[in-house]
């Protein structure tokens, strides 16, 4: 029972941290850079993508033995496009202004590399339930990344937080962060922070698990060039 449970939860937790689509796998970069001029946009785009990701992962893993390999790509693309159009229509009806701000980028969820990558890499080989969990995990990882990007860019670029103007800050806002150049900057530095953090944690885990296994030759020398990770109790 334990490993079956792990088999389901594992892809979920993977999706968020270990292979977080935006920071680790660097997938789905088009909406990440374009939409995150405001935190609310990032959040909605993330949730819309998560919905499409879950449904398409589920359906593709259901049909994985039925779809012949020759027409694999058109079939997947059609399934994904169907869900995206549903999201597009529902959003146009119930969230019109948000639909206007996301505009062109909603149909572009279809070609968002994450969905196709998860479909090809994961859900066409695994059972529906792990695929859905993987879709959920990756989706939430993507949404978190987008929202964080949105918050930073909105805070620095427009001096507001989720649309609420911060009185004093907004007349010192650096509009560079709203422009494309700022997007690339923020995205690059966030990847650095994320990688450094995950590597540091990984190093600590290795150090703990490695324990005494260190060879005599290496033991006394610390890694000279990993400058930025804090020493940590060895």
């Amino acid at each position: 029972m334990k490993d079956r449970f792990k088999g389901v939860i594992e892809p979920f937790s993977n999706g968020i941290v270990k292979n977080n689509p935006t920071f680790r796998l660097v997938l789905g970069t088009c909406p990440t850079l374009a939409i995150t001029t405001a935190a609310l946009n990032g959040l909605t785009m993330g949730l819309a993508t998560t919905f499409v990701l879950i449904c398409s992962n589920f359906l593709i893993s259901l049909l994985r033995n039925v779809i012949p390999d020759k027409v694999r790509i058109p079939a997947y693309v059609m399934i994904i496009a169907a869900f995206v159009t549903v999201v597009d229509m529902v959003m146009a009806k119930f969230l019109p202004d948000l639909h206007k701000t996301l505009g062109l980028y909603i149909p572009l969820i279809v070609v968002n590399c994450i969905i196709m990558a998860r479909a090809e890499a994961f859900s066409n080989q695994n059972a529906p339930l792990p695929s859905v969990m993987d879709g959920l995990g990756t989706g939430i990882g993507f949404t978190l990344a987008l929202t964080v990007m949105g918050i930073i860019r909105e805070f620095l670029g427009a001096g507001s937080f989720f649309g609420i103007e911060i009185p004093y800050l907004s007349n010192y806002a650096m509009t560079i962060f709203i422009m494309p150049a700022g997007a690339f900057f923020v995205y690059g530095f966030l990847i650095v922070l994320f990688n450094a953090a995950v590597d540091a944690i990984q190093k600590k885990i290795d150090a703990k698990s490695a324990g005494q296994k260190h060879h005599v030759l290496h033991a006394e020398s610390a890694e000279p060039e990993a400058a930025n990770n804090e020493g940590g109790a060895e």
Partner: protein
Amino acid sequence: MDILLPVVILTSLATVFAVVIVFVNKKLAVQDDPKVEEILSLLPSANCGVCGKAGCADLARSLVEGKAKIEDCPSCSAQSKAKIAKILGGDIAKFEDTLVICACCGGNACDDKYEYQGYGDCASIELIAGGRKACSNGCIGQGKCNRLCPYDAIQIIDGVAYIDNTEDSKCRQCGICITNCPKKIMKRIPAKAEIYIACSSCYKGKDVRSMCKKGCIACGLCAKICPQSAITMKGNLPIIDYDKCNACGDCLAKCPTKVIRWLKHD
């Protein structure tokens, strides 16, 4: 009517395109040589490009066309090399497996001629008066090999490169470090070697002692006491003949500066 029209249009479009794809795949299929797929599955597909081809698919195709030799791909394991040779129909030529070692152990123990403050890596330091180390064939320690190694198998310890060849070694002998080291101290030695010489100095003992505390002082003791006389002194440096060496370890015990070291364990 609103439902019928889109359904008809989309289904007919999908069918038309499906038919065209299937027709095109069937009629115009260019028979790829099945051997290419087979070989591609055996190659490590790391696409490291060391073989000079644009990735493993390209290498597989040129292997079948005879434009490349399997030795070009150093990180391919011995069994798959044998299998590929069988697919290509050639006899299983004796694939001499090799291991890569760093023939220097000086690093911080070797004095610096000048203190390098600037940009770049070993290659740029080498440009200034043959590197910052007093010993001109010693490792500069700026880590160019460490950064270029696709398998992260090289560590810079105490200012000198070290390749771990013990059982959980990550080194795939791809040879990127050999081509990129400006001092040319990364060397290939036969896989059956048990010991190796961690020095490539060409100076007499007196000069070595003044420059580097760990270097080989060319005393020649190892050559004298080796029971299999596998070691010969050539230009102030011992050379091991790995066919004769039976890894008895006498030379290693005798060596005053511990330059001769175990390869596969500590």
